[in-house]
């Protein structure tokens, strides 16, 4: 029920921002960055509110959608669509004669659909590979878009005030009420669709063939996802820019993928990371002139990704390294305990560690003897190792990463039932 509450909260926030949005003031980037930060945090400027709310909505929308895009391996499609909508933006602008969100939305959706069609045609009727087709469509459409935009900006009737250059790199502060309304509507619709059909999207993403076999219309859901993806890209470009909007689909979702092993959590976390990155991006971009919002959002998201990459509790690279080190240390300690149990000698460093932990004490000279606690622990380790070896030989097949895990966790790992069975086998073996 968390996603529902999230959706409601986002809706309320948008409404609040819109309610006072008439008082749009021209942005004054004259003051120092501290003044600007203060202005942003006060949220008294309508344009600040619109930019901030828009960036957050964008983050939530792209983050939530992105979780499915990343899991289905469609990241490059997001990038292609992001670039390919640009000529549609220009045509929408020309048709309306002004920067009106409605016509621009329609033009951009049409361009996105045309791009998807071109990719399909290129791969189906020729030997061109899908990634090459995406590259061709991306650059071809983007080139056309740049040509059109440059022409429009030079047209005397629009002067230099068209504001179309913001579409390239994004400028949250340049969002209008109309932009926000479109963004909020698309976000609300997409989030509702994801919420209602979450199980279908999950099943199709995990195992498309199986999903088909239980009667889920996989094509429909594929195209639904594609439509939502295009719409999300289109409403996001005002704040994030066409060049980098796909990063907001890919990075928050990839970050969340490193942090959790459950799909609903992944979607929620990805949306939250997207929202935070969006907000930070628009905040920093507000601090001074010539700070485009899109790249700042992406940098913020990339920073969070780097943190997760290193320090994610389960999948972080550094965390894994540290875990391996502590495992090695524990294994050395266990080896030393077993040696002492057998009456053997241990090397001084391991011995000192045993004494420090109160598992052994000096028995005169360089000899060490186990304490009561140390003895119990050593016995337990010996038994677990025996069980473990038995398991490896009897049950033949193991997942390799388990072999390194703590042998003291054998019950947890194999389940009590198997451990009991192994113990019985072990007893039998001893009796023979």
């Amino acid at each position, binding site marked *: 029920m968390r996603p529902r509450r999230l959706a409601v909260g986002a809706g309320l926030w948008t409404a609040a921002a819109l309610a006072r949005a008439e008082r749009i003031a021209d942005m004054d980037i004259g003051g120092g960055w501290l003044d600007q930060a203060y202005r942003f945090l006060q949220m008294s400027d309508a344009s600040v509110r619109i930019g901030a709310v828009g960036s957050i909505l964008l983050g939530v929308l792209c983050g939530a959608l992105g979780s499915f895009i990343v*899991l289905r391996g469609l990241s490059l499609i997001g990038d292609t669509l992001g670039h390919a909508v640009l000529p549609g933006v220009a045509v929408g602008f020309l048709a309306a004669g002004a920067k009106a969100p409605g016509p621009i939305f329609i033009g951009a959706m049409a361009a996105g659909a045309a791009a998807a069609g071109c990719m399909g045609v290129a791969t189906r009727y020729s030997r061109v590979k899908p990634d090459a087709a995406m590259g061709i469509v991306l650059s071809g459409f983007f080139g056309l878009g740049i040509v059109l935009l440059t022409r429009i900006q030079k047209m005397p009737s629009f002067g230099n005030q068209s504001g179309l250059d913001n579409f390239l790199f994004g400028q949250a502060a340049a969002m209008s009420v109309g932009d926000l309304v479109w963004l909020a509507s698309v976000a609300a619709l997409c989030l509702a669709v994801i919420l209602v059909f979450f199980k279908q999207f999950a099943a199709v993403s995990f*195992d498309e063939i199986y*999903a088909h*076999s239980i009667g889920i219309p996989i094509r429909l859901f594929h195209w639904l996802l594609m439509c939502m993806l295009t719409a999300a890209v289109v409403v996001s470009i005002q704040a994030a820019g066409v060049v980098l909007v796909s990063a907001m689909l890919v990075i928050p979702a990839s970050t969340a993928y490193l942090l959790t092993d459950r799909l609903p959590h992944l979607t929620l976390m990805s949306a939250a990371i997207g929202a935070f990155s969006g907000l930070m991006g628009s905040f920093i971009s507000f601090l001074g002139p010539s700070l485009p919002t899109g790249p700042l959002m992406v940098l913020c998201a990339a920073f969070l990704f780097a943190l997760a990459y290193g320090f994610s509790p389960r999948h972080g690279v550094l965390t894994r390294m540290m875990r391996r080190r502590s495992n090695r240390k524990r294994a050395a300690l266990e080896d030393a305990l077993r040696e002492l149990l057998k009456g053997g000698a241990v090397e001084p460093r391991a011995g000192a560690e045993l004494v420090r932990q109160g598992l052994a004490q000096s028995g005169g000279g360089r000899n060490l003897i186990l304490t009561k606690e140390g003895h119990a622990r050593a016995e337990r380790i010996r038994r677990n190792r025996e069980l473990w070896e038995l398991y490896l030989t009897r049950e033949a097949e193991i997942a390799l990463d388990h072999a390194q895990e703590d042998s003291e966790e054998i019950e947890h790992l194999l389940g009590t039932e198997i451990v009991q069975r192994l113990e019985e086998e072990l007893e039998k073996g001893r009796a023979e």
Partner: protein
Amino acid sequence: MIPAIETHNLTVSYSKRPVLWNVDVAIPQGRLVGVIGPNGAGKSTLLKTTMGLLPASSGWVKIFGKPIKEARRRVAYVPQRESVDWDFPVTALDVVLMGRYGRLGWFGRLKASDRQAAQEALQKVGMAAFARRQISNLSGGQQQRVFLARALAQETDVYLMDEPFVGVDAATEKAILELLSELRERGKTVLVVSHDLDSARRNCDDLLLLNMRVVAYGPAKEVFTPALLQKTYGGRLTILSDAADAVWEAKR
């Protein structure tokens, strides 16, 4: 009695190259059927076409006398294990719960009874202790059992299994075989694609020998003959099947 699965003149092609030719077969209810044949014989294709996952170029398939679209609730499909990304962020229980999605319809939500059914399915394949584990942390055999549990959770009358014995440990193989015979005792119909001829002969009621066409279909004892196997596999297999015969004789 209506056959559980019936095909007539079924031809299936991949980009205009036929993989199955004029397949005519009627599988009675309550049989455990091994589908055997060389690589590229169309075994998986037969299963997929039966499920309506691939279109037939000609001919038809019927499940209990009805086209698959009307009979989806009565058939469960177990795809090959390699067909999915096991790093996907779901637990074993999540996967098995997907077996209940088919009966939820467009807007249904999982109920307590669905969770119960999923837990029981996991129990049946001996995976109850692993319900909360993310699926990449399972061994190959355990992953296969999760797939079987997902099909069991569908509570259907027909089960189509695509190579469930590939890359599994001995314990899992035994567990799957027990499960298959239990399903048959409950009157279910099971089709299993297998590469292990000896095991197929010993454990299945019927065998379907397939090599683009149906070479033979019938009780295992009658169709597991060197002549028919040679027809199915081409020349090389006779030695293998002789060897299998010898092993079988020796075991008895």
